[in-house]
């Protein structure tokens, strides 16, 4: 099925929100792919980091908000440091996570952490995961 585009979709409210929260201009991206090529966890993502930027450019925000990618990204900043346009792709990912988290949509249910793990896990892992993944 084709994806119907109009100017209202391209510059929809959510794109504005993504730009506002991330402080990045999605139109800076010229799709060189450096972010995806360097991403250490790209193989687990359903859409690649460069595609995140691409989808944001034409307002396919549904795909972004519901993507697995944003939850796989652990903000290692490899993409941000290598982007030739200085786009902080990791901040775009964070913005997308935040939009979800602020609607209480997250991917971590504290009750489901394996108890065996719980005794060994360092506090930084738990606090980090709660802050990034729990709504």
């Amino acid at each position, binding site marked *: 099925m084709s994806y119907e585009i109009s100017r209202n979709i391209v510059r929809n409210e959510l794109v504005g929100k993504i730009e*506002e*929260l*991330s*402080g990045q201009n999605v139109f800076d991206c010229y799709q060189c792919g450096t972010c995806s090529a360097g991403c*250490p*966890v790209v193989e*687990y993502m359903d859409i690649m980091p460069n595609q995140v930027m691409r989808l944001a450019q034409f307002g396919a925000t549904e795909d972004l908000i519901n993507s697995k990618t944003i*939850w*796989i990204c*652990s*903000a*290692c*900043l*490899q993409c*941000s*440091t290598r982007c030739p346009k200085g786009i*902080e792709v*990791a*901040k775009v990912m*964070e*913005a997308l996570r*935040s939009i979800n988290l602020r609607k209480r949509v997250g*991917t*971590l249910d504290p009750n489901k*952490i394996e108890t065996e*793990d719980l005794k*060994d*896990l*360092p*506090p*930084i*892992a*738990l*606090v*980090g*995961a709660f*802050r*990034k*993944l729990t709504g």
Partner: protein
Amino acid sequence: MNLPYYPGCTLKANAENFEDSAIKVMEILGYQLNEMKDWVCCGTVFSMTTDDLMLQLASIRNLLRAEEQNLNELVVLCSMCYNTLQRAKKFITEDEEHLNKVNDLMYKENILYEGTVDIVHLLTVLKDRITFDKIKEKVKKPLSSLKIGGYYGCLLVRPKEFAIDDFEDPSIIEDLFSSLGAESIAFPYRLECCGAYQTITKKDVTIKRTYEIINSARRAGCEALVTSCPLCAFNLDQRQKETAEEFIEFETMPVFYFTELMSVALGGGWDKSWSKMHYVDPRPILKEKRLI
């Protein structure tokens, strides 16, 4: 000499060996790590959205405590604390509006936060203030023939403005271990993410990361890894258990905090209690190299 020091939660919980060895090493080098008073968790991960001031408060409170205690710097061991404190400080202080708002949020505090406290990683102290040449002079038991891979992970080198060395090709850990007499190997995956907190929700991701990182180090000839991040240490060391279950041909490799091996080299020795804090038993390799 006294150095004000911020430990962070994990050094008090799962990484006592990191703290103990660091304190010991610094004593040998003539420095006293003085734990600051009233510290709290740094927040562990920096929140990157432009509007999020609340999530910076944990970090900023620590810096405010330090200002109250008239400290002008904080030495940090844990890479995560180092990174989060640095970035929170920048985010708040570079924008006057942020600074004012944060002070409004902390209205019950006695003083206003100004941003005067510098955050320094212990590795930087070793390199710039003590210098590796001086450390070399103090080596009692050179780590001769021990092939060490320095694992930086993300947080010591990214974002680049807070990198403790060149962000694509650092050498600070390698230089340190060369001065301790070890053979330093800059292995390809030393700046690759370990999977961080995904270890909770996506264990498979971290297991694969561990597998790739350890294998990259092994192919480059490393016998052991050193790190300065308790989360990296957890993923690279504890997760080797699951990694070995997942990949049958996988061979384990001991992972140290850099300070543990410094202690061995500088004559502080190996504390028995440290051994049980490692999943992969570090004693065989240390014995083999006649270091314990």
